[in-house]
């Protein structure tokens, strides 16, 4: 097993697209640390997705993107979260739970709406069963379109939200 670790090495690459972005992430992360006094914590809430967006959010934790390596952590409770990363569309059946999660998140809270569905309702739109876009239910700071958005786009969206803060 040790041999395998040695052979593969550490495959954490700088976030794709540009080394500049990787440096930016590191810089922002230090800034976040300075402002918050700790790492950025994210609570992911699936409010009605087809689960495609979740596949890409999972990919943020793979050794290539390695979000945790930058000190950005997914946490289990909104109470410990700086940011809600919400996929949609928000179903009517999740409307209440999403509002509760939002209320439980301490101020100042950032909300990132993920995917075409989270941004606009996407293919599911608004209906008897769907509230559509996340912003129809809670205030949204940043939108990351895509069906599903790539891990790079997600990372950029998270950074954009932090920058706004």
């Amino acid at each position, binding site marked *: *097993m040790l041999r*395998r*670790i040695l052979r*593969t090495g550490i*495959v954490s690459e700088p976030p794709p697209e540009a080394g500049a972005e990787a440096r930016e992430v590191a810089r922002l992360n230090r800034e976040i640390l300075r402002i918050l006094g700790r790492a950025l914590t994210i609570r*992911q*809430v*699936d*409010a*009605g*997705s*087809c*689960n*495609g*967006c*979740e*596949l*890409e*959010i*999972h*990919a943020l*934790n*793979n*050794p*290539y993107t390695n979000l945790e390596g930058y000190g950005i952590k*997914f946490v*289990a*409770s909104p109470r410990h979260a700086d940011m809600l990363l919400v996929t949609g*569309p928000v*179903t*009517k*059946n*999740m*409307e*209440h*739970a999403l509002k509760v*999660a939002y209320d439980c998140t301490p101020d100042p809270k950032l909300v990132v709406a993920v995917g075409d569905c989270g941004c606009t309702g996407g*293919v*599911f*739109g*608004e*209906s*008897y*069963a*769907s*509230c559509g876009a996340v912003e129809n239910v809670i205030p949204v700071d940043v939108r990351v379109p895509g*069906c*599903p958005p*790539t891990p790079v786009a997600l990372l950029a969206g998270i950074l954009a939200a932090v920058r706004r803060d």
Partner: protein
Amino acid sequence: MRFFGEPIEFEKQAGIGGPVWLGRAESGEALQAFAVAAHRADGRLAALWGSDERRRSGCFRVHCVFGFMAGHIRVSLDLPAEHPVYPDLSGIFPAASRMQRATRDLVGIATAGGDQRPWLRHGAWPADWYPLRHDAAQLANAGAGFPNAPSDYDFVPVGGEGAHEIPVGPIHAGIIEPGHFRFSVIGERVLRLEQRLGYQHKGVEKLFVGRNLAEGARLAGRVSGDSTCAYAWAYASAVEAACGASPPPRALGLRALMLERERVANHLGDLGALGNDAALAFGFSQFMRLKEDWLRLNAKLFGQRFMMDRIVPGGTTLDLEAPALRAIVEQCEAVGREVKALGKIYDEHAGLQDRFLTTGAIDADLARELSLTGVAARATGLILDARAHRQGYTPPPPWAMLGVRPATDERGDVAARAAVRFAEIVESLRLLRELAVGLPDSEVCVEAPPQPGGDGLGVIEGWRGEVLVGVALDGEGRLARVHPHDPSWQAWPALEHAVMRDIVPDFPLINKSFNLSYSGADL
């Protein structure tokens, strides 16, 4: 043609998809008798849904699909508009229960007897309003304006001294879809788990109504994102049966390539996550790396990491050239070597095996009883795979030529579900190589002109299990009704059984080993 000596006449569905027979029961008693006979013949309930046919024939209709040795049988039954009631089948097939409840919530046709609690309706629309009825059309568009009043749910009370309840969800810890789990426990031991799902219900079936075939394909590919290829193919196959279209041989090969790539991607992710839950972070990072490499090649070759929208009625939207096919073969070889090495590490890792063995076990009798399909069924020893030959069954093209060897393991526990995934990756890599090397020369798409009034059923062996899509067209050749069916319908109740007698802290691991779709079953 008749089955099991029952007096229902069936016609074989035309086309090149899996073997499907379609028939009509004359009465509720005839449907019930057929279900009993199907059960006796080792059949399973594959899907159940309803449709509003009042505009065409003045009635409602319930459709039951039974899976059996030789393929699938769909039995439909007309129900009078003024009293749309049919016999409760849950005493014969327990899997019927949630499907019947959902059908009542959406179409307003009900069973005489059985569990009458709502399933998908949590209070977002009134109890006497049914979204899939024709006359609900106006209201269903753009914010129906019903007050959203979440209703209480009657969980089955669990008695017993020292027992207490732990409610979890709908929002779970982690990056996962929402659903509610109610555990009854004594100490750490789980006495019972009751699930309440439906939180992902976003009105998918309603959205299909009135769409054209291409729009339907896009939507079908988003029923459960992790199975987008399986759904797109099952939908295309149903449409092709309904419209008398035959996708060209190369398209079938390409579809199979995509389906197997989807299977491998998901199995890689699951094996990583299972390692992670058993505190083997190394396994997690290795499998996630392999999965990411896999998805990047998808993006390069198919223009999309999950190959969404590449399978359409009539064929595929893209072709692969020789260098692309070579890249697939090369990747299969590299991934095969790594998975083999990782398999050895998983097998020999004492801590991991300790967590996996005997945890979350179900047996083949229960799997049969619950009409289970897919990884979870094969992990109890059932040999059930729509891609593989079995007695009396020849799989549809392109599988028949490939000689698919289904993976099984008799243990029924987390270890077995992991072992089946390992074995299926190896087999899929073999299939991918064969498909890439032997892809027939032909065009990749033909016209599938909509056939007014056509209807069909598509069945595809997705990575999780059997995916079915039923399609019916209206008089203008638009979609009148589409019912996508996820294998999770049958597997969620199996999970309820699997956690019994285990301890609460093992639940995440057991849940992961099933990795069921919420969206696919909540629709």
